[in-house]
């Protein structure tokens, strides 16, 4: 194709769709013009653009939120509840949208967007709008429903969740997520009554029968019927089921409704815990026996006995703080450590054993609050209904209209025992603690992102196993830094400095947050000191990375080796790393 030089002198903005296409193809095919454009790209001002954009995005957190909002799905779901979209981001919006659209959410959306596009096209044609604008509108109209259809396909594999096509469940998963995976597999072929079950199981598994006998199910207090085995497990032994919240919710309707309602607050929450676990990229990527550990805690969404242990299912037990520590302990969420270090926790430890735990979690019934007293006041089965700071894993604006409502809920609760002003002061204290923590975290994040811009992260993302499951990452290897880029899965197969930041963010930062939230000032101080040390060592390591080499490809290669850097296998080889690359 011959090229008319005059074309190139015309401004890009004045071209119509066809002219634009012809110019693009011309440029692509003509060496000289490609070179001309390359020259422009080589100008120092232009070369700085990506870095400037990166800086701008990093420093302006409002922009990040805006980017999320611009996403068409988020915009569509926006009408349902603005703060939920803000809190949860795009994925949450999809969920909220699907819920408000009922079971056929995606298809309803398909129809809505299609009709909307038709109307828009008509309007635009009528107003004489250029054709490429109309084309864009049509493309967007096609893209949105296609996105939802793809989402549907991605959820239809052997696993569950967004990556259900990429993994097979481990046999043990049936016990953590019975609704999706339980396989009854019993060779006793008969139908039994409740009395028969008990008679037989008294001999086989006397422990659970004894537990049941001590439960309220076996001796209801207000004239209700006795709840025997078949009520929850079914009576056909070849087709037994393990109870899930829906089965329990058959009777406990209020609690089930509260659990369902919790979903609207997004994650972190109990109700969405399992969904989020299986949608985590590292869950899909890692060998299933390894990540089964995750499901034990995240099964709080799929079973009720995480808190009300079987077969006694005691409310009194779940009111005690210890019942939460199986999951709420350990490095990223030392809820146990920080609560027991607080004045509340100390009173509970000293005197709790003597309190009457059959009482509901209401004002006046307890001398000091337990986990459930504050997070599930009056027994409301939703821990997220007052969740402002979102576990401390990402920065939030604590004073949005939505969060102001949540703050009032906290103040009302604290006022069971404390003065109003005192309660507000604590919330402000939390804001301050978060501000300090995020100042340090953003500094560290900035150091890492600068390193990334300058291609100084070592080993570079292309020189190590790819980021879990990320197709984009294989095409365009990239370090994932910060919450919005998926830092939560970037704790293995990454460079030392990235892991350092992960630990600072996920361990020390969250420790600080939990300590502040539970009233453990010594814990806050300890955590912030640790964060200072982390930041310091990240800065030092970054300096080292900058000064130690000029070419990242040479890193990690012994001076004597004259092979290709990757052949050394420092970051690629090893029993687990290889196994993980092949197994998920």
């Amino acid at each position, binding site marked *: 194709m011959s090229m008319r030089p005059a074309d190139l002198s015309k401004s890009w903005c004045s071209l119509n769709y066809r002219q634009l296409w012809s110019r693009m193809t011309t440029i692509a095919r003509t060496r000289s013009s490609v070179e001309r454009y390359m020259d422009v790209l080589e100008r120092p001002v232009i070369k700085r653009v990506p870095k400037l954009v990166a800086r701008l995005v990093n420093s302006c957190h409002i922009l990040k939120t805006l980017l999320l909002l611009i996403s068409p799905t988020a915009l569509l779901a926006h009408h349902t509840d603005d703060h939920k979209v803000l809190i949860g981001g795009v994925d949450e919006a999809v969920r909220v949208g699907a819920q408000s659209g009922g079971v056929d959410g995606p298809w309803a959306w398909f129809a809505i967007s299609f009709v909307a596009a038709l109307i828009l096209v008509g309007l635009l044609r009528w107003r004489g709008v250029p054709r490429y604008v109309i084309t864009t509108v049509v493309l967007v109209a096609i893209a949105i429903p296609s996105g939802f259809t793809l989402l549907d396909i991605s959820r239809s594999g052997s696993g569950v969740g967004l990556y259900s096509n990429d993994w097979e469940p481990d046999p043990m998963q049936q016990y953590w997520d019975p609704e999706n995976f339980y396989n009854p597999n019993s060779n006793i072929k008969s139908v039994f009554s409740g009395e028969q079950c008990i008679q037989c199981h008294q001999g086989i598994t006397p422990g659970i029968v004894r537990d049941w006998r001590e439960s309220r199910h076996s001796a209801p207090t207000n004239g209700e019927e006795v709840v025997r085995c078949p009520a929850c497990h079914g009576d056909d032994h070849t087709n037994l089921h393990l109870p899930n919240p829906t089965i329990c919710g058959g009777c406990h309707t209020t609690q089930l409704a509260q659990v369902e309602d919790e979903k609207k607050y997004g994650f972190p929450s109990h109700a969405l815990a399992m969904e989020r676990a299986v949608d985590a990229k590292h869950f899909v990527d890692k060998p299933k026996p390894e990540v089964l*550990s995750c499901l034990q805690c995240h099964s709080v969404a799929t079973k009720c006995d995480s808190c009300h242990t079987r077969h006694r299912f005691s409310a009194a037990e779940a009111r005690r703080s210890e019942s939460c520590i199986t999951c709420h302990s350990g490095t990223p969420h030392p809820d146990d450590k920080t609560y027991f270090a607080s004045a509340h926790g100390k009173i509970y430890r000293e005197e709790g054993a003597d309190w009457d735990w059959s009482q509901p979690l209401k004002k006046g019934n307890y001398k000091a609050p337990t986990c459930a007293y504050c997070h599930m006041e009056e027994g409301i089965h939703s821990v997220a209904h007052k969740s402002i700071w979102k576990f401390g894993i990402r920065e939030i604006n604590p004073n949005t209209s939505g969060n102001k409502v949540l703050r009032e809920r906290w103040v009302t609760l604290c006022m069971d025992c404390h003065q109003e002003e005192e309660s507000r002061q604590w919330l402000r204290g939390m804001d301050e603690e978060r501000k300090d923590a995020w100042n340090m975290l953003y500094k560290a994040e900035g150091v890492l992102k600068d390193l990334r811009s300058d291609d100084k992260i070592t080993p570079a993302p292309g020189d190590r196993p790819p980021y879990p499951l990320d197709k984009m990452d294989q095409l365009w290897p990239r370090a994932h830094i910060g919450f919005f880029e998926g830092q939560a899965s970037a704790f293995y197969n990454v460079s030392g400095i990235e892991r350092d930041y992960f630990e600072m963010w996920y361990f020390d930062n969250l420790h600080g947050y939990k300590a502040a939230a539970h009233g453990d000032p010594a814990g806050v101080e300890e955590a912030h000191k640790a964060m200072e040390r982390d930041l310091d060592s990240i800065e030092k390591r970054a300096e080292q990375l900058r000064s130690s080499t000029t070419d990242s490809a040479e890193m990690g290669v012994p001076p004597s080796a004259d092979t290709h850097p990757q052949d050394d296998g420092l970051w690629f080889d090893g029993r687990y790393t290889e196994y993980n690359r092949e197994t998920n």
Partner: protein
Amino acid sequence: MRQLWLLPSMLLVSLSSMGEEFLPDKVYGEQECVECHQKVSAEIMGNHRQGRHGSGSIGCSDCHGSSHNGSLARSRANRSCTQCHTDVEQRSYETSKHGVILTLEESGWDLTKPLATVSVRTPGCAYCHLSDGDHAMEPKADGDPKICGKCHSTRYLKILTSSGEAMEEVGEMKVLEAKWLLKWKGGDLTQQEQKELLDSVKRHRHNLHLGVVHHSPDFQWWHGQPALDGDLIRIRSKIAEHRWTSN
């Protein structure tokens, strides 16, 4: 004098516990225990001597106390084990669901009865590690239906056990990877550095093991698997750092 009120109840307890009623309520020395129990319960004594406790310096009174009064109940209580087995061993158990239930309810249990009769709601240390009164405390197979079967189905136990084994296999792969890295690529590292890195790996591997056998998700995961991932990264970074400095 203030403890005088305890006397009647102590008498009652000692009278009601079988086999203890003939004995004077006094404080016994370790030697006295051994001399008498060689005759009355030779099997248990032999068992104890073969085990790690007996071959070490742990005697009868360390768990049973030095009086016959409530000696069995005392040894069945978790406190008798956690007075020595502190730190990760205790934490990994206490954060399991078994441990949580025990913490909340143990004070209400009648520990004068043998544990295996389902007189307790959940297993404590002794329930599993001394099942059948095994004083040698041989390592128990995880998920043994003889021990766990009073509450859990055989199929559940089988799947749980093999899942635990697979979980530990993954952990073992990480240990092998760490050792391999240090051996073949860590030549520049000092002995001290190598030791520190490997110790951390071993510690986290042990946490994982405790998490699996005590069923503590927290120890399986946060103190185990991702901690081992961190160890691997630290080993690799350290090796790479040495290469740059020697470059």
